[in-house]
């Protein structure tokens, strides 16, 4: 039984879907951010796989930059959460509804 690119793509999709579920499901913002990491990681797996099966390095580069992006996002995201938390003492997104309509 040979593992093909398709296997990896399917795996990637499943992981991505898990991430999506997390994004939609989580109300705690911190844990929601976890889910966004899963999304990016899922993509990374696929990139690496495609890169491998095609014998091309660009995919790995893309994954590399995605990791960098993920790291930056964490910094900003946590910064935002900190100010928000300092103001309200909560990080539940249900509390954030002063604007609507």
């Amino acid at each position: 039984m040979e593992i093909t690119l398709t296997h990896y793509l399917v795996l990637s999709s499943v992981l991505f879907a898990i991430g999506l579920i997390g994004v939609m499901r989580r109300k705690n913002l911190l844990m929601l951010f976890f889910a966004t990491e899963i999304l990016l990681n899922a993509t990374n797996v696929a990139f690496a796989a495609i890169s491998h099966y095609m014998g091309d390095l660009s995919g790995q580069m893309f994954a590399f930059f995605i990791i960098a992006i993920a790291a930056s996002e964490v910094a900003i995201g946590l910064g935002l959460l900190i100010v928000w938390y300092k103001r309200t003492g909560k990080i539940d997104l249900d509390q954030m509804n002063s604007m609507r309509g």
Partner: protein
Amino acid sequence: MELYLYIALFAPLVGSLFSALFGMTPKTYLTGYIASGLLFTSFVSSAILLTYVMGGHTVHVEMMTWMATGDLYIPFGFVVDQVSVVMMMVVTIVSTVVHIYSVGYMDHDKGFNRFFAWLSAFVFSMMVLVMSDNFAGLFIGWEGVGLCSWGLIGFWYHKESATWAANEAFIMNRIADLGMLIGIFMLYWNVGSLQYDVVFAEIGNLPIVIITWIGIFLFIGAMGKSAQFPLHTWLADAMEGPTPVSALIHAATMVTAGVYLVVRANPIYDLIPNVGLFIASLGAFVALFAASMALVNRDMKRIIAYSTLSQLGYMFVAAGLGAYWVALFHLMAHAFFKALLFLGAGNVMHAMHDELDPFKMGGLRKVMKGTFIMMTLASVALAGIYPFAGFFSKDLILEVGFVEHHYVIYTVLLLTAGLTAFYSFRLVALIFHGEERYKLFGIHPHEAYKFMLVAMSPLLLLAMIAGSFKMTYYQLVINLLPSTQYHVHNEVTFWIMTIGTQLFVMAAILFAYKKYSNWNSVPDGSSKMENSFGYKLLWNQYYIPKFYEEVFSKPYLELSKIAWKQIDLKIVDATVDMIANAIYKTGENTRDIQNGNLSTMLRWMVFGLIVLLALAVAFTVGYNAVSA
């Protein structure tokens, strides 16, 4: 001669404008004098023109262009020919008399100045009507007299009935005017011009169907102005106006415009005898119909109005049967004696403080000798007793009917002649004879101003002697009108007819006198006759006004309200608003998509993705299926 033409035409306008200047200011006799003076000038000019025309000439001027576009060319053109000059004479004579009379009649009225403005304006319009050399100009006058009639019927605008009657008259005339307008359109598109001379020259080349339609539409116009059935109801209601107005407009001039139109358009009607027969039949019917309503009416002016209507019927019989000159002759004679009758009635009204019910009068001959004489003679003329004017004109129409072998029409007209005599003298008897019933109402009647009586005298004179102009007139108008002579060829028949008619009429007069000259009570609606079906039918004018009210006026108002409140507001406008509201409501109802909750927002994003994915998958499947 053109100068006289312009003077005759525009003098009344000047008088009108002059009076209008004082329209808002308190009464001044100046307006009355000036207006009357200018009308007299107009009369003199007309007379001069008459002599000129009698010399075998005509005057035709084109003052200026009115409308010109495309192939249409309508000038202000005026023609004084044998027919129009007769009408001009009639108009100017009667109106001069009425003007002078009105100075007295309207003496106490606040709207004195305004009255003369309207009255002179009317004369001007009438002059335009008769003098125009084309149908459009005729239509100007036609509508103009309608306007002035509206202003004069509703002269006492604070009276609800007067303004109602004014509007009724105007609107009814408008209905007919539409017909006339269509007739004019047809003429233009078929002939290419509206000038009388062109039209009459070319009309023969048209298919008979078109001529027939033209004739019908033009006659519809005439029906409105001359109050022929079924557009007759306004005339009786128009009696709400001041009496001189009734005399001038609703007896002598305006209502005869219809007859004038038919006479003027004789080259058209000559080609379509069937329409002519219809006109004649309608005329005969109206003659009888109107006379019957006059029999029972208790309003002095309305009785005279019905009589006018009836006489118009006679004229149409003549015109319809092709005896245009006869129609015109009766028109002229009728103008004199009917105006006289009305003015007399005005005197009586004045005396009786605007009381109109002859049953409340009686015995007035003692206080109003002059009026009595004049009205009696006018009635005699109306009844057609030799040698008064009516005899010459009216009996001629009977003869026309007979000669043309329309015996039904003849019979009807003969019967009507009897009825005419009856109701005329019923009126005279009730007013001037019998007990002085007015005393019951505490009225102190008095004779009118002397100058008013003097002013009326020319009419009296004409009513008596107009018949003697018959041959002069005939010689004049046959230049334009068909010169058929109507003689019963059999001497015996002729004499039997003439004398028979005279006797019949006399009998009617005597009957009227007998029945009413000793009347002594005011009917209160309880008598047996008053409760009979026939009486009620006549009294209610065959229920026609009521019928119009119920079938046209009220439903129209109701329909209008429905159109506004139900259709316009609830359907048309509501649809527009509904669209706008639907859009707005959609916004209101869906704005919660953006409920401010981050989780929902994220879900919407994923939802959007999924929808697109689903479409993508569906498309892919379909695409593969197709390509496979």
